[in-house]
């Protein structure tokens, strides 16, 4: 009848069906707020459990895995390379071992810490994805995680570009010709983290879309 076209929650049919067989997407507690306490009680019985969206769970698992991977790849990133310094033509060239470590750069430290935090938050949000009470805190946390992840990616990528190209204006020499594998691994970690940040953005937009769809003025 009307229920197939009109959103459930707008009319009494949707509320009745939602509370009986649970097949409707949202029983519409807002409707109960306006129309009386009976419908509110019927909606409140199911309010403890949120509908679990498979797509957002998959995205969250992806974010969890990729932030973990990028934190680990960056965290084990170190390289020792020897450079030859020729002092004069008569003496044999001097070999100096030089080590590049991820903790030498504050941007990379920030990157690892931010990725680990987002990873832990994703695990916590995954554990709490079934409770409706955690929906808003998880969303706010998602937003903060998004900002944190994007700023960490920005800082690490900027450091990587400085290492790759240097800056001739202030005489910062490039270092990636000496530490080739170090730079490649750091760039791989940044790219994986960037993909995770995009997945987090899509996740956040999906949850906003869910709220938008369930709004009673849709």
């Amino acid at each position, binding site marked *: 009848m*009307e229920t197939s076209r*009109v959103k459930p929650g*707008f*009319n*009494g*049919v949707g509320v*009745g069906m939602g509370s009986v067989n649970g097949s409707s997407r*949202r029983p519409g*507690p*807002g*409707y109960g*707020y*306006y*129309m009386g306490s009976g419908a509110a009680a019927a909606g409140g019985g199911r309010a403890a459990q949120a509908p679990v969206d498979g797509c957002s769970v998959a995205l969250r698992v992806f974010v969890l895995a990729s932030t973990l991977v990028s934190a680990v790849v960056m965290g084990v990133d170190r390289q020792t390379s020897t450079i030859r310094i020729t002092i004069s033509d008569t003496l044999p060239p001097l070999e100096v071992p030089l080590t*590049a*470590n991820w903790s*030498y*750069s*504050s*941007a990379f430290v920030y990157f690892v810490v931010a990725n680990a935090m987002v990873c832990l938050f994703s695990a916590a949000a995954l554990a709490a994805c079934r409770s409706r009470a955690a929906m*808003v805190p998880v*969303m*706010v946390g998602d*937003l*903060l995680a*998004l*900002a*944190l992840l*994007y*700023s*960490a*990616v*920005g*800082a*690490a*990528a*900027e*450091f990587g*570009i*400085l*290492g790759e190209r240097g*800056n001739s*204006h*202030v*005489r*910062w*020499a490039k*270092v990636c010709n000496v530490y080739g594998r170090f730079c490649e691994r750091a760039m791989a970690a940044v790219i994986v983290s960037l993909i995770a*940040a995009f997945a987090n*953005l899509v996740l*956040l*937009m999906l949850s*906003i*879309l869910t*709220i*938008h769809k*369930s*709004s009673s*003025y*849709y």
Partner: protein
Amino acid sequence: MATVDATPTAESGNGKQAPSPPAERRSSFSGADLALRALLFAVTLAGLVVLATAKQTALVPVPQIPGLLLSRPAKFNHSPALIYLLVALCVTCFYSLLTALTSLKLIISGSSPTKTLFLLVLLDVLYAAIMASATGSGGGVAWIGVKGNTHTNWNKICNIYGNFCRHIGSSVFLGLIASIILVLLTILNTHSLYRRSR
């Protein structure tokens, strides 16, 4: 068939009665929305001006020849991260102007359709991501400028270009405030969307 008859009355009753209790609070929310957007516009414009005017010429010692000082300028477009920050501030400035006008129009018309709110939230999230990454990269290059990095032999430049560094630092700080405002805007509008969902 009783349900079919009941449907229009429920809908019309919903349309008449429902907006009255939250209408007052919603209008105050849109006022806060407009205020935050105006603040965002002011902050991004200030950051833009401060970053674009960051230019200083200083005497720099040449390492090969001791005792020789060379006059070298420092400008923001010498670093790709600062160019990115400038572009992000510029885009966010335009965006905040447009959305402030939209918000003003919504206040004047007295209604805020859910669809507009939804689009605003999506764009806010997108711009928050852009501003956060720009702040991160600009802050990274400013940090190296302040502290230097002894491991890669990158000397700090803020002892030479003091004024330039202050401009860059203020601009990064304003970018940070702009991203915080965007996050707050998203939370505010999502909350008003969420309140309609129950």
